[in-house]
Structure formats: structure tokens, C-alpha cells
């Protein structure tokens, strides 16, 4: 049985269609990368799988059942930021909340410290788990966040931009860790990302969301000039460097179609697009 089956799903937020006609499945133990411009609905896809948003059409089935909130088989790693309140805790305490944080009452699970110890060992965070999180580097913090999201042994793991704001060396370490988590726990993993290149070696399939459409397939099937040109509605060129990195040219056309956020956000979103194009062309 598939971990996730999405069939002809569409999603609307505040009356606006984010994307429609998404059809894909996620097999146990596979890694799926989700790509697309800012505001295209990548995080919305994760919220749909978590049962925080309902599809306006079609079905989203998680382990064969309708997606629902609080499913213990689904883990979620949020985007972490510097000033988050979680930073005043030690890593060990934050990981512990991933284990029994949702539970009310006085009881304490006897296995708790052992389960946390294992999660810390798997993510290589044992040495700095007792420091407050504000004293950690970005990469160390992401490792703690991965331990938080995996400590209750979910079979499907959703990661929202785990590589954001990391330098290349730290990105490579996190990619290795994601692969290790998949191999060790057998969990299926869905990773939202800005840049496919660091993830390419471990990815089994790619979901690309743009212009309210969702394309799914292997890297070779989706990341082709034909498919992306069709998805974006204008010519896209893909240059493969001698190191095997794909440089995608032509996404800057998105500039011409700022998202309808209202006047205050137009400038900001155009700016973000620029950053994204710049990253994808240079990294």
C-alpha cells in the first residue's frame, strides 16, 4: 500500500485556487522533492497531507485513510527561524516535546529518555543536545529539528525547507542525514526545497508546482525543457554543468506575473523571486 495517494486533488484558500488536478503517489521508503516558485502552494501541500487544510476537489489519502489532524504516523518539520521561542529550550527538551508534547496529564512514558537518546544518536546531535538552541549553528539546529520530527517514529516525514539558510557544506550534511533517516527508519520523506541540486542524489521523484499545476515524476521526467516550458508557459532552458548540476534558465519570466497579494506584498514577492532565480542559476 502507498504511504500517500493524491487523486485529482485541488485546494482553495480564501476562495482562490492554489493548484488543481494533482495526481501522485508516494511509496514507502521513497524520497520526494517538492519544488516551485514562492507562493505556488508547496507548504499548502504539506498542510493538506497533515489534515490542516481540506482538498476542495479530489482525495488525499494517507495510509489509505482520509488525511486527518494529529495522525501519529506523520511527522512534520517546520521551517525554523532564529527568533523562535523554541530557541530558549535545550535541544533535548525540544526533541522530547516531539515525543510526548501532545499528551495531557501527569503520566510519564518510561521509555522517554531512551527514545530521545536514540533520536539524538541517529541525528548526530548527542554532543550539543543539552545546550540551549539559540547557541547552536543553523545546521545543528536543523539536526535537532529533524530529531524532533522523527522521535515518535513516523512512517511519513514532511520537511519544510530543511536546507534554507544553510551554506553548501551544511546543506550536504543535512541531505546525508535525510538519506540516513530514510534508510534507518524506512520512512517515506517529502522535502520542500528551493534548489533540486543538493537533493538530486537521494531523490526518487520530483513534484513541481507552478501556475496552479502540479507535475510529478522522476527527475528526468519532470526536469526537462519540454515539461518545464509547458508548466511555466514559456521557454525554459536547462544547462547541465560538468559536475552534473542542472542550471535552469528562464524562471525569471515569473517576474511578469507577480502574485495577487495586494500592493504591499508585490514588491516583496518580486524580490523573493529574484533571489530564487539567482540561487538556481548560480548554485
Amino acid at each position, binding site marked *: 500500500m502507498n504511504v500517500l495517494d493524491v487523486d485529482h486533488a485541488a485546494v482553495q484558500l480564501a476562495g482562490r485556487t492554489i493548484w488543481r488536478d494533482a495526481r501522485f503517489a508516494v511509496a514507502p521508503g521513497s524520497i520526494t522533492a517538492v519544488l516551485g516558485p514562492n507562493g505556488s502552494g508547496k507548504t499548502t501541500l504539506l498542510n493538506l497531507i497533515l489534515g490542516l487544510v481540506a482538498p476542495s476537489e479530489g482525495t488525499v489519502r494517507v495510509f489509505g485513510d482520509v488525511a486527518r489532524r*494529529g495522525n501519529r504516523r506523520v511527522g512534520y518539520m*517546520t521551517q525554523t527561524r532564529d527568533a523562535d521561542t523554541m530557541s*530558549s*529550550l535545550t535541544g533535548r527538551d525540544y526533541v522530547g516535546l516531539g515525543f510526548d*508534547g*501532545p499528551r*495531557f496529564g501527569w503520566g510519564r512514558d518510561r521509555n522517554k529518555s531512551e527514545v530521545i537518546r536514540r533520536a539524538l544518536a541517529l541525528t548526530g546531535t548527542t554532543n550539543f543536545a543539552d545546550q540551549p538552541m*539559540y547557541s547552536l549553528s543553523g545546521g545543528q539546529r536543523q539536526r535537532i529539528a529533524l530529531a524532533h520530527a522523527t522521535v515518535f517514529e513516523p512512517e511519513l516525514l514532511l520537511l519544510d525547507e530543511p536546507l534554507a539558510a544553510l551554506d553548501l557544506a551544511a546543506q550536504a550534511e543535512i541531505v546525508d542525514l535525510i538519506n540516513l533517516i530514510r534508510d534507518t527508519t524506512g520512512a517515506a520523506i517529502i522535502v520542500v526545497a528551493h534548489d533540486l541540486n543538493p537533493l538530486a542524489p537521494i531523490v526518487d521523484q520530483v513534484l513541481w508546482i507552478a501556475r496552479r499545476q502540479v507535475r510529478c515524476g522522476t527527475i528526468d521526467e519532470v526536469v526537462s525543457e519540454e515539461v518545464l516550458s509547458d508548466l511555466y508557459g514559456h521557454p525554459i532552458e536547462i544547462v547541465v554543468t560538468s559536475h552534473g548540476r542542472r542550471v535552469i534558465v528562464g524562471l525569471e519570466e515569473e517576474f511578469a506575473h507577480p502574485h495577487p497579494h495586494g500592493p504591499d506584498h508585490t514588491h516583496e514577492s518580486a524580490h523573493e523571486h529574484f533571489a530564487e532565480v539567482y540561487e538556481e542559476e548560480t548554485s
Partner: protein
Amino acid sequence: MSLTNLLATPFVLNAFYAVTAVALAAGAVGYFVVLRRQAFAAHAIGHVGFAGAAGAVLLGVSPIIGLLVFCLGAGVLIGLGGASLDDRDAVVGVTLTAALGLGVLFISLYSGYANATYSILFGQILGVSSGDVVVVGLLSLGVLVCVSLTYRPLLFVSVDAQSAASRGLSPRAMSLVFMSLLALTTVVAIQIVGVLLVFSLLVAPAAAAESLTSRPLHALLLAMGLALFSAWTGLLLGVWLGGPVSFWITALASTSYVVARLLDASRPRRVRRRVA
């Protein structure tokens, strides 16, 4: 009368029991106030309490009834309306000014206002009756039981609302639970230290504790301990040396915060906090 005899008088004993109950509840709830960065909401609920107590005095009923009605009402309003960070300050600010305006009206309608106003604003710790002690004790005990039962989920939504929501917790419902606990704690604290000094027991000990340890349970217990220390020592100094007990409690709580920050700053090899 010697100090030992003075400490055994009924009004000092009542004050001792009341201040103990209040300090424990305020320390525990205060930890979450500091963690959730909701000091402004705590401040506002105290001032809303002023309006409630003034209204009760005007109607000739016990101030605690007015406090309960107004503080819980404000807690629910802020909890529901300000669950997201974006509009929290605005909701709190509007609630605060609306209530203060009402408070001014009630006070102006009540003729013998000076005494009543003074005790609402600054507390009347040595005027606590045995009946008050029972009410304050039961409310504090209720708050402590609720905090211990909701400790983990409350901590989870406070440090990472998104992750908590993905695990089935409702940040809005938890915000409501927390604001209700905060409102009840404010009601009992106002009995002792008054509206203007509620902060001394609610925020200062917790802020001191939070800067001394990053383990949440340790910080919570330390906050309760520091609040208790300030309250007991403040009561003792007030009885022994004279001067308002509220002053002593406030001075001790503020001093413990300053000392904690100095200790935190002087600790070696410690990366400076990036969060305010």
C-alpha cells in the same frame, strides 16, 4: 511586641498563607507568560481587573467577583482574538484601554473612592481575612493543578505552534486555556500585591528563572521558588522593618531578576542570547 509574637498574629498568618498560594501560582503561570512573550497581556489583564474591582465596589459586592468576571472576560477575549502574533498587541491594547476607561468611570461614580482605589492598585496584604485565604488558596490550587495537567501541550504550542498543530493540538484552544489560567492567577495576585504590582510576582521571578536555565521544568520550578522567596521575605521585612509589603515583594523580585541577568552575563563560554 517581639517579632515572633508579631508573626503569630492572625493577620500576619493570613497574609503568610495567602502570599504563599499566590506566589506558587504566579511563578508557574509566569513561566509561560515569559516563554510566550505575553507580558503585555498579563499587564493588561491586571488593569482590566482594576475596572472589575472598582465596579464591584460600586455595586457593593465583593471585589473578587468583579475581578473574576472582568479578568476571565478579558482573558477569553485576548485568547480568542489574539491567538496569532500578528494582531495580538492590538487586541490586548484595545481591551486594556476600554477596561481602564470603565474603571475610571466606576471610581468617579463611587464616593468613598480613595481607600478602595488604593487597595486595588497596591494590594492590602495585611488586611486579608480568613475567608479570603480560603478563596485565594482554592483558586491557586486549581491553577496549579491545571498547569500540571496541561504542562506538556502548553509548552509545545508555546515553543512551536506549527509543529504542535500538526500533532493535533489546537493553538487557539491552548491559548484560551492559558489566558484563563493567567486571568485566575491575576485575580488572586491582585488580592495581595494589587493591580500595579502584579508583575512583580508574575513576570520578574519567571524572567529571572528563564535566563538561568534552558530546561523548562527547572525554569518553572525555579520561578515558583523565586516568587515564594520574594513573597515570604517581603512579608517578613514588611512586618519587621515596616513599609508596605508590596514594596518589599516588588523590590526583592526585581532584584532577583537583575541578579539573574548579571549571573547569565558573567557565565563563561556561553554564546550570547539572540532572542530578546
